[in-house]
């Protein structure tokens, strides 16, 4: 049991030591020193280190954003007194007193955007060609990169070796470079050849100067003193060819070189315009074709039919001669068979499009004429209606007045009769006479009552008639309006 524990202790120590060693072989990647492959928005740049933000924090006091490390360094160089609430100082941008809280951070969008930027592996000098997202570069170095230093695979050798070479066994034996005779470890030979073996420098084919292999591409594109570069204005006629620095000074002074970029942009624009124009003319062709087909479909029942329909309209519509006849001229060449041309007053048109436009215009005129005629008609009808209504109403009121007179007369008659009855009853004459008067009373009362009923029915009949007149008028005007509206929408 004790032995087991002791062994575990030893193993743990071993593991920790190994981890510490690998840490010292490969210090954590400093994200400010890596090369950014992708271009990034200047807003993602920390104003202090001028790199995309690394672990950004926003100062709550003023809203400015910096890398956590940058703001800390900035405050360390200022005279800040210790406080238990964490580092504080003035904002480097606006001097607002601010404080860095342990939980100060920024929103995840910014962090994600900076972590998405593509960077080159920090071991690219040694030959790693990987380009990874910045957020994954540490993982790349720790786990995948073949150029990360790891412990030598051989027993009893604790020296570092590149991960890709681990399978080759211990490479920690001295060799001497075959080219320059320098003594070094086998595992470093690759790197030596690549970066600093003087004998392995290749000669620039043009300027004969010696260049390390890794710099060759850069040398021939920018630095080589002998590769003569034509003046940027060569296309405009400057025949100057010069090398390296001279070329740059020439480009500074040469008028043609200065004009070149402007002219190229002009040229590009011109080409763009031409392409657009070509497209437009294609479109026009297609449209013309479409128009021809439409014409040929319409031609069997072209103008004659239309004129007939419009001619029956009572409204002051266009005379048949107002309608534009089908165009003639150039279009006849394209589709002469598809429709016969009953040429009328309208002259030839420059193109089918013009003809169509003209037709459209005349149709629009017609529509407006029809609609004005309709509204006029509508107005006349409603006027007529109003007059009619007025007369009817007058008659009704006259009849009503007569009725009132009649009613009054009847009332008078009834009351006179009643009066007479009462007067006759009071002296109490013989039963026979009283019976007779009662009968006459009854008959006369019934007659009065019947007359009253007749008057009443007459009054109601009159009222009904009046209502009918009213309703009829309203209905008629409504119908007319509906019809006119319908007509307008149809047109």
């Amino acid at each position: 049991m004790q032995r087991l524990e002791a062994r575990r202790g030893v193993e743990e120590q071993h593991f920790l030591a190994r981890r510490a060693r690998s840490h010292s072989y490969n210090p954590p990647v400093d994200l400010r020193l890596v090369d950014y492959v992708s271009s990034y928005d200047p807003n993602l740049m920390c104003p202090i280190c001028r790199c995309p933000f690394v672990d950004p924090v926003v100062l709550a006091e003023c809203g400015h954003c910096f890398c956590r490390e940058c703001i800390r360094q900035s405050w360390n160089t200022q005279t800040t007194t210790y406080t238990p609430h964490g580092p504080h100082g003035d904002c480097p941008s606006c001097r607002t007193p601010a404080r860095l809280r342990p939980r100060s951070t920024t929103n995840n969008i910014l962090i994600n955007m900076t972590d998405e930027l593509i960077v080159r592996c920090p071991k690219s000098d040694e030959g790693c060609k990987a380009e990874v997202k910045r957020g994954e570069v540490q993982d790349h170095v720790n786990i995948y990169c073949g150029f990360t230093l790891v412990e030598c695979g051989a027993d009893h050798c604790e020296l570092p070796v590149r991960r890709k070479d681990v399978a080759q066994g211990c490479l920690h034996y001295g060799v001497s470079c075959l080219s320059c005779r320098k003594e070094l470890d086998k595992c470093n030979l690759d790197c030596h050849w690549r970066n600093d073996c003087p004998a392995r420098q290749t000669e620039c084919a043009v300027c004969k100067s010696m260049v390390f292999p890794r710099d060759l591409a850069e040398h021939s594109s920018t630095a080589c003193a002998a590769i003569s570069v034509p003046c940027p204005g060569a296309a405009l006629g400057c025949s100057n060819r010069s090398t390296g620095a001279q070329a740059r000074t020439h480009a500074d002074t040469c008028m043609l070189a200065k004009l070149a970029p402007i002219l190229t942009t002009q040229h590009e624009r011109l080409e763009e315009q031409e392409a657009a124009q070509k497209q437009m003319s294609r479109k026009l062709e297609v449209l013309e074709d479409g128009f021809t087909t439409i014409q040929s479909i319409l031609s069997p029942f072209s103008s004659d039919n239309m004129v007939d329909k419009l001619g029956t309209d009572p409204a002051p519509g266009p005379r048949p001669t107002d309608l534009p006849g089908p165009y003639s001229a150039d279009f006849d060449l394209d589709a002469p068979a598809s429709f016969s041309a009953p040429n009328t007053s309208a002259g030839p048109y420059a193109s089918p499009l013009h003809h169509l436009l003209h037709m459209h215009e005349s149709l629009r005129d017609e529509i407006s004429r029809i609609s004005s005629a309709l509204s006029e008609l509508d107005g006349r009808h409603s006027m007529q209606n109003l007059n009619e209504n007025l007369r009817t109403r007058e008659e009704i009121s006259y009849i009503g007045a007569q009725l009132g007179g009649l009613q009054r007369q009847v009332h008078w008659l009834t009351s006179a009769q009643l009066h007479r009855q009462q007067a006759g009853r009071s002296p109490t004459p013989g039963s026979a006479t009283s019976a007779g008067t009662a009968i006459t009373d009854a008959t006369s009362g019934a007659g009065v009552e019947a007359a009253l009923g007749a008057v009443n029915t007459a009054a109601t009949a009159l009222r009904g008639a009046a209502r009918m007149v009213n309703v009829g008028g309203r209905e008629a005007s409504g119908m007319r309006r509906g019809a006119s509206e319908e007509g307008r929408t149809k047109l």
Partner: protein
Amino acid sequence: MAANKRIMKELGDVNTNPPPGCKITTKDEDIYNWDVSMDGPDDSIYKGGKFTIAIVLPKEYPFKPPTLSFRTKIYHPNVTNDDRGAMCLGMLRAEEWKPPNKIADVLKLVRAVLSAPQPDDAVEAGIADQFKNDRKGFDKTAQDWVKKYAK
């Protein structure tokens, strides 16, 4: 190391897009010492002169301001009239320096000060007095010095 990277970046920026009238070089890969050759601004009495300015970046850059000195003698109230030719005002003062400032901004400030001297912030009291009271005499001397030293 991070400062180093920032300086490299600024150097790249001013080389591709130099501030008006300035040409910047560094000696022997020493990125902490910049040499600037500045043309006198057209709207100033220093027009036509060519001034050499040395900018030294401290190791703590950008947390400490760079120091600036005119290698070419210049008659100006804000530049010390000795062989140091130091200029120290505005953002160049330690207490006013902000890490986000760039050398290009500093050079713009220098041009602004050449165009419009700041006599109230002067290091050369005599020249400042002359600037305020005898503008003609000041202009003449300054132009003479330009002819004499800044050609």
